[in-house]
């Protein structure tokens, strides 16, 4: 049946992208930081992906005896499952979309709200003070930035009149939404970086503070799953930005639609990596206060101004 093939194909492509990002991120970080990165294993160092994956599989699958066993196992599973589910609504091309839901954007927001649980449960299950503190901070950051992730997309929904992603892509045939909603793009991207807890918002992982944040006690494949979840999250936010603001699979006819979609998504993935290579990490209280006091009023203002201008133009 056709749907099963689309589901399997989408998941296969996604897992390959998540694995390939291991190599891509380290090479691009190296390039932007004026060094070489992995270049020994295989041509251009691409076999580092295989080496890393096999290493994680063959590590000891150890659950700390002081940890809560079932919650410890469930936490990384939640993040991978919820991010894989979010790809159900993304339109790769006019005919390749797993399920063109009536409430597409809301489904994406629902799945990203579920991502908070993996941090909270992972930190709590580890029964380690530093993990718990990292988990609470990470969860507070994610829920603070989730409020205006939904609101920033409402400007586009107001202009299109539908939550379906295929309608939104089709509504961009004349002009991309990046030109009509620039403020919403900036706010959505910032919220997306905070949701996937990448630099500059990676206090939950906190590579030089709090040991390793909520995943201090994790090792082996469960640790690997947290990182697969993070790379898939990066891919998801890039795909959503490309679809909502930059026309998705629209483009001149000399390339097939899915090629345009992948080009735009990869451009944003590279932008994520550039952010990691270049920006310093702000303090946690600066992060939270900016989120609540600056970005939330800004996104509400954007919506009201969009509404007023759109109604005024219509006459």
């Amino acid at each position, binding site marked *: 049946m056709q749907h099963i093939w689309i589901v399997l194909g989408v998941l296969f492509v996604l897992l390959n992208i998540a694995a390939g990002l291991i190599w891509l991120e380290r090479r691009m970080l190296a390039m932007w930081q004026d060094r070489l990165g992995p270049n020994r294993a295989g041509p251009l160092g691409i076999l580092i992906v295989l080496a890393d994956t096999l290493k994680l599989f063959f590590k000891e699958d*150890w659950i700390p005896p002081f940890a809560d066993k079932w919650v410890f196992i469930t936490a990384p599973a939640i993040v991978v499952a919820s991010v894989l589910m979010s790809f159900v609504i993304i339109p790769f091309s006019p005919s390749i979309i797993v399920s063109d839901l009536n409430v597409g954007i809301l489904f994406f927001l629902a799945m990203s709200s579920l991502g908070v649980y993996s941090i909270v449960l992972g930190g709590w299950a580890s029964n380690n003070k530093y993990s*718990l503190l990292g988990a609470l901070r990470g969860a507070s950051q994610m829920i603070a930035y989730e409020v205006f992730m939904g609101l920033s997309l409402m400007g586009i929904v107001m202009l299109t009149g539908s939550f379906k992603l295929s309608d939104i892509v089709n509504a961009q045939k004349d002009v991309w939404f990046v030109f009509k909603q620039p403020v919403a793009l900036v706010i959505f991207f910032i919220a997306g970086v905070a949701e996937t807890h990448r630099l500059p918002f990676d206090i939950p992982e906190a590579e030089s503070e709090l040991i390793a944040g909520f995943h201090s006690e994790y090792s082996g494949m469960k640790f690997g799953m947290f990182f697969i979840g993070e790379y898939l999250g990066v891919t998801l936010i890039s795909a959503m930005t490309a679809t909502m603001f930059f026309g998705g699979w629209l483009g001149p006819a000399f390339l097939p639609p899915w090629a345009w979609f992948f080009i735009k998504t990869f451009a944003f993935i590279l932008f994520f990596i550039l952010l990691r290579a270049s920006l310093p990490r702000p303090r946690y209280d600066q992060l939270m206060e900016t989120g609540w006091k600056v970005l939330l009023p800004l996104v509400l203002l954007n919506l009201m101004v969009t509404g007023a201008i759109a109604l005024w133009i219509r006459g």
Partner: protein
Amino acid sequence: MSALTILLDANVNSSANYFQIGIQLLVAIGIVIVMMVASHLLGPKRSTSEKLENFASGIESHGNARAPMAIKYFLVAILFVLFDVEVIFFYPYAVNFKELGWTGFWEVLLFVAFFLVGFIYIIKKKALQWED
């Protein structure tokens, strides 16, 4: 046979579109279980006494992690619930924006104004200030 009719249903507004979500959920859970079981079977099992302690960069830890936490996390969570429900009320408006015209716009503006009043109260009372 009824499974096939679900898939051939072309009505865009029906709930048959959710069937693929079920398939994707099952495959995603299957992938996760395979990864966990494979790493469980493939890895060695070695226990040492250091592994039984919490990891705190070599410093000894006192007490377990089940201790009361600061109330600011709780306040952030409550305010998140309130603002999330405000955003939910915004969604039906955004879809019907063009049909509702100026009347709907003023209604929603009033709604957002009440929320902004509450928001200004929260900022003035320093409930969201992270450091004292």
